[in-house]
C-alpha cells in the first residue's frame, strides 16, 4: 500500500471544505474497511525556527507525522447483527477515547453510537509508532483515518443496498443503521454486511462529511462504558479470570531500586497458608498465593537482606542541591528593571487508583500478558528480550486502565510479571501493593524553574526561563519516536528530552526575545511523564512572574495578560473566564481570585479560580487529611479547536483542575534517606472532596478549527498556575515552593520494613 499525496501543508491547516480521501475495503466474509491517511499538519515543512518553535511545529505534529506511514491498518468491521466494531490501537485509561472514537464512526457511518463497539487492540508491532497513547495525541492523530474507514463502509453498504433494493445508490438514505429507498423499501446494515464484503482488497476514494453536516461530532455524548462501570461489570486487569493466574506480590526494598540479597526464611514463608511459590527476582522477592491477603502476609513475613538502591542517602535537600549545581547560568543581570524568581517543585506521584498490575502466563516457547499499556509495542519488545523469546511469541493484550496520568506509559508491572511467571513456571496475577506503588513507582521529577523578565515602562523586553529537573524517563517509546523523526525536526542535534521540552512549551505572550531551556540531572529515580509533563511547573512559574510584572507596571493581572497575549483564541478564552468568573469583584481579606492561561496540543485553556486562605478555612479539621486553603470556585474555558465530545472535554478539564489544585496546594512526595515517606493515600494528599471547589464551571468555546486538538492533559498547567496566583494574591506573598504545604509533614511515615502495612482488622468498627 502506498500513501496518497498529502494535502498542501504550506501555512497551517488545509483549506476547509470537502476533501477526498483514500480508504480500503479488505477481503473478509463480512464488510471490513480500513484507512491509512492522516492529513496532518506534518513536520517536514517547517523552516529553521526563529523565536517560537511551537508555532511551526509542536509535539503533536511530530507524533502525528510519525504515525503517518502505518496508520492504514486501522479497520472498521460491520457485523451481520448490525453492530460495528473497531479495535482502537490506543489505551483507554479514563480519558474517554473509546467514546469519542465510537462517535467518529457513528457520524460517518450513520449508525447509532450504541451500535459501535470499540475495543482496545493487542500490541501490533506493524503499527510501529502508531500505538503510543500519550501527549494528548489520540484524537488529533486518529480523527481523520477512523472517519475515512467508516465512510468507506458507508459507501459500500449503500452500494450493496442499491443492488438489494433495486434502486440507484443516489436515491438511498442511510440513517440510524437502516438504508431506505424512495419507494419505502428498507434494509438494515446487518443484512448488508456480508453482501458489502469484498473478495479482493480494493482501494476506494471517499468524501468525508462537512462539519455542517455533523449530527454526532460536536454534540455532548455520555461515556459508552459508563453502564459497565456503574454496575461493576467493567473489567480491569485484576478482574480478569485467566486460568491458574494466582495472586502475586513482591516484597520490595526499603530504598528506591534496592536489590534483594539473601533471604533468611524462604522455606518458612513457602510453608505459609495458601502460598504456592516464593522466588527471588530482580526487583525483590516474589510471592504467589491463593489470595492477595495471603500474599500481603507472606511479604510481611519475609526477612531479606537488601542491597543499596539508586538514591542512597538522598533527600529533598540533597536533590535540591544537585539541581542547584545543574542550573544553567542566567547571564548578566539586565540594565533595565527585571523580575527575577526561582521556584521549586517537589516530587509528585503519578499513581493511578488502579495500582501497577499485570497478568502473565509465560511458557517455555511463548508468553501472554494482560495489562493497561499505553506503549504496548515497546512493552512487547522489552518483555520478549527479558524472556529470551522472539517478539512473535509474545502476545500483549491491552486492558482497560484504571487511570494513568502518565504512569501507564511504562510497563513496569508487565515486565516484572513476565519475569516472575517465567521464573516459577506458572501464570501470575501480579499486583503492586499501594505502598509499593507510592514508594517504588514512577514520579514527576523534582525541578526548579528560574525566570527573569526584563521590562521598561509598559513593555516587556525579554523573558528567560531555565528549568532544571531530575531526569524524566521517556524510555517508553516516545524516545524511539523522536529518534526516528529526528532528521525531520528543526531543533538541531539535541537529546529528545530537550526536544520534548521545546516542542511542548509555548510562549503565548508578547514578551520580546524569549528563551526557555531545560537541563536534567540524576537518573537515579523512577520518573515519567506525569499528566501534562513539564507544563504545570513551567507555566506555574511563568504565570506567577506575569502577575509580578503586572504589579510592577501597576496593571491588573487580567488586563495585563489580555494586553500581552499574541493569539486571538487565547484572548477569547481569557476574556470568557474573566467575564463568567466576574474577575475583579470585591472579596474579603484572605481570599482572592487568580487567573492563568496555557496553550498546548493545538488548544487553549484559561482558568479563573477563587481561593480562601483564611485561618477558619485552612485549619478546618479533617481526619487524616490535609485541608489547607480551599479553592471555592473555578471557571475554565477551553478551546480544543474542534470539540468531538463536549461532555467528555468538560470531564477532562474537571479532572485537570483537580490535578492542578493538588499540585499547587497539597500533593507531593517527601524524599528522606533514599526513600519516599509516602506509602498510601492517607499520606499522599491528592485532591479530595473537602478540597473540591463547590462551584465549578467549564466553558467549551465555539470551535475554531476543522480538526480537534488534544485535551486530556491540557488543563493541568493553567489550573495549577491559577491556584498559585490566587494563593499569592490572597496571602500577599508569591509562593515559590510547591505544593505550598510541602514544608509541613502531615502524617506519620509508615515503616519501610516490612515494605507493606498490615491489613487492618477493625473494619466493623467503621461501618456507617
Amino acid at each position: 500500500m502506498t500513501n496518497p499525496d498529502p494535502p498542501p501543508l504550506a501555512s497551517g491547516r488545509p483549506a476547509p471544505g470537502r476533501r477526498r480521501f483514500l480508504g480500503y475495503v479488505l477481503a473478509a466474509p463480512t464488510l471490513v474497511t480500513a484507512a491509512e491517511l492522516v492529513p496532518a499538519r506534518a513536520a517536514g515543512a517547517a523552516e529553521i525556527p526563529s523565536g517560537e518553535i511551537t508555532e511551526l511545529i509542536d509535539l503533536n505534529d511530530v507524533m502525528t507525522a510519525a504515525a503517518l506511514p502505518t496508520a492504514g491498518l486501522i479497520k472498521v468491521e460491520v457485523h451481520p447483527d448490525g453492530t460495528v466494531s473497531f479495535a482502537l490501537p490506543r489505551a483507554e485509561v479514563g480519558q474517554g477515547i473509546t467514546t469519542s472514537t465510537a462517535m467518529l464512526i457513528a457520524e460517518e457511518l450513520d449508525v447509532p453510537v450504541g451500535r459501535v463497539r470499540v475495543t482496545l487492540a493487542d500490541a501490533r508491532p506493524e503499527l510501529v509508532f502508531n500505538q503510543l497513547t500519550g501527549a494528548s495525541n489520540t484524537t488529533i492523530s486518529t480523527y481523520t483515518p477512523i472517519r475515512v474507514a467508516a465512510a468507506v463502509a458507508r459507501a459500500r453498504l449503500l452500494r450493496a443496498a442499491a443492488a438489494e433494493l433495486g434502486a440507484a445508490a443516489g436515491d438511498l438514505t442511510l440513517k440510524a443503521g437502516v438504508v431506505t429507498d424512495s419507494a419505502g423499501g428498507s434494509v438494515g446494515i446487518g443484512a448488508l454486511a456480508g453482501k458489502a464484503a469484498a473478495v479482493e482488497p480494493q482501494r476506494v476514494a471517499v468524501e468525508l462529511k462537512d462539519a455542517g453536516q455533523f449530527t454526532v461530532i460536536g454534540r455532548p455524548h455520555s461515556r459508552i462504558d459508563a453502564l459497565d462501570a456503574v454496575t461493576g461489570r467493567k473489567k480491569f486487569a485484576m478482574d480478569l479470570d485467566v486460568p491458574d493466574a494466582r495472586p502475586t506480590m513482591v516484597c520490595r526494598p526499603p530504598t528506591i531500586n534496592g536489590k534483594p540479597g539473601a533471604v533468611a526464611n524462604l522455606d518458612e514463608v513457602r510453608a505459609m497458608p495458601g502460598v504456592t511459590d516464593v522466588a527471588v527476582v530482580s526487583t525483590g522477592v516474589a510471592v504467589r498465593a491463593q489470595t492477595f491477603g495471603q500474599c500481603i502476609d507472606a511479604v510481611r513475613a519475609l526477612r531479606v537482606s537488601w542491597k543499596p538502591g539508586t538514591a542512597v542517602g538522598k533527600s529533598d535537600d540533597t536533590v535540591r542541591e544537585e539541581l542547584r549545581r545543574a542550573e544553567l547560568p542566567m547571564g548578566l543581570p539586565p540594565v533595565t528593571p527585571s523580575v527575577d524568581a526561582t521556584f521549586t517543585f517537589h516530587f509528585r506521584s503519578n499513581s493511578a487508583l488502579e495500582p501497577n498490575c499485570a497478568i502473565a502466563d509465560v511458557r517455555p516457547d511463548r508468553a501472554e500478558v494482560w495489562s493497561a499499556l499505553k506503549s504496548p509495542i515497546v512493552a512487547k519488545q522489552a518483555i520478549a528480550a527479558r524472556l529470551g523469546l522472539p517478539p512473535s511469541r509474545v502476545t500483549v493484550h491491552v486492558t482497560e486502565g484504571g487511570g494513568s496520568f502518565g504512569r501507564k506509559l511504562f510497563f513496569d508491572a508487565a515486565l516484572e510479571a513476565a519475569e516472575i511467571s517465567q521464573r516459577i513456571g506458572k501464570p501470575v496475577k501480579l499486583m503492586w501493593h499501594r505502598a509499593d506503588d507510592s514508594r517504588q513507582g514512577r514520579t514527576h521529577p523534582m525541578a526548579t524553574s528560574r525566570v527573569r523578565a526584563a521590562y521598561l515602562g509598559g513593555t516587556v523586553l525579554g523573558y528567560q526561563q531555565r528549568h532544571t529537573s531530575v531526569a524524566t524517563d521517556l524510555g517508553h517509546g516516545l524516545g524511539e519516536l523522536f529518534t526516528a523523526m529526528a532528521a525531520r525536526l528543526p531543533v538541531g542535534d539535541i537529546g529528545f528530552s530537550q526536544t520534548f521540552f521545546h516542542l511542548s512549551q509555548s510562549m503565548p505572550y508578547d514578551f520580546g526575545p524569549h528563551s526557555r531551556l531545560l537541563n536534567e540531572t540524576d537518573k537515579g529515580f523512577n520518573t515519567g511523564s506525569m499528566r501534562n509533563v513539564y507544563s504545570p511547573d513551567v507555566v506555574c512559574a511563568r504565570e506567577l512572574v506575569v502577575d509580578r510584572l503586572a504589579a510592577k507596571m501597576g496593571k491588573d493581572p487580567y488586563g495585563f495578560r489580555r494586553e500581552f497575549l499574541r493569539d486571538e483564541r487565547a484572548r477569547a478564552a481569557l476574556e470568557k473566564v474573566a467575564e463568567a468568573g466576574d474577575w475583579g469583584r470585591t472579596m474579603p481579606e484572605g481570599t482572592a481570585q487568580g487567573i492563568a492561561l496555557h496553550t498546548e496540543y493545538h488548544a487553549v485553556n484559561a482558568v479563573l479560580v477563587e481561593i480562601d486562605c483564611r485561618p477558619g478555612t485552612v485549619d478546618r479539621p479533617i481526619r487524616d487529611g490535609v485541608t489547607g486553603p480551599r479553592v471555592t470556585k473555578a471557571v475554565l474555558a477551553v478551546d480544543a479547536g474542534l470539540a468531538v465530545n463536549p461532555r467528555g472535554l468538560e470531564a477532562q478539564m474537571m479532572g485537570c483542575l483537580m490535578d492542578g489544585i493538588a499540585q499547587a496546594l497539597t500533593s507531593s512526595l517527601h524524599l528522606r534517606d533514599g526513600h519516599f515517606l509516602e506509602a498510601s493515600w492517607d499520606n499522599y494528599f491528592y485532591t479530595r472532596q473537602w478540597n473540591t471547589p463547590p462551584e465549578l464551571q467549564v466553558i467549551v468555546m465555539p470551535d475554531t478549527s476543522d480538526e480537534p486538538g488534544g485535551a486530556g492533559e491540557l488543563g493541568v498547567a493553567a489550573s495549577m498556575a491559577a491556584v498559585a496566583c490566587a494563593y499569592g494574591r490572597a496571602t500577599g506573598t508569591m509562593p515559590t515552593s510547591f505544593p505550598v504545604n510541602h514544608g509541613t509533614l502531615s502524617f506519620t511515615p509508615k515503616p519501610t520494613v516490612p515494605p507493606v502495612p498490615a491489613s487492618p482488622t477493625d473494619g466493623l468498627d467503621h461501618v456507617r
Partner: protein
Amino acid sequence: MPEHTFRLNGEQVTVDAADDERLLWVLRDVLGVTGPKYGCGINVCKACTSHLNGKAANPCAIPVGDLEATDEVTTIEGLADTVDADLHPMQQAWLDHDVVQCGYCQPGQIMAAVALVRRVAAEGREITDDDLDGIRNICRCGTYTRIRDAIRTGAQSM
C-alpha cells in the same frame, strides 16, 4: 480451613477461608466478585466500599471471621436488586451526570453515596455540602464535582 457463612447479594454463601482473611479477598479471589476494587488495602482510599446490612463498609479491613451467618453483604453487583430494578437510582444518577472516567473507584463511590443518603435520611434532613465534603473515597481522575451533582440527583429518587 474453616468455613464461613454469610449472605452475599441476597444469597447465602459458604466459603473456606482463614478467619483473618479479609472480606475483600474472599470476594475477589475466592468468590470472583470483582466489583469492589483494591486501592490501598488499609481502608483509606475506599475503592472497595460495599454495604454490610445496608451501611457502608470496607471489606479490605473486615476479617471474614467477623461476619455472622445473617450478615448481608451487598457489593455493587447486588445494589440494583435491593430496589428490584435494573439500576439503583444512584447508578442511574451516575449515568445521567456522566460521572465515570476510568471507572475504577466508581463502584465504591456509588456504594458510599447510597449509604450517605440513607444515613442523612435517617437523620431526617437533606444532604449538605459538609456531608459531601466528608466523603473520603478518592477519585484520582478528579470526578468529584459530578459525583456531588449525581448524589444530589440520586437522593431525590431514593
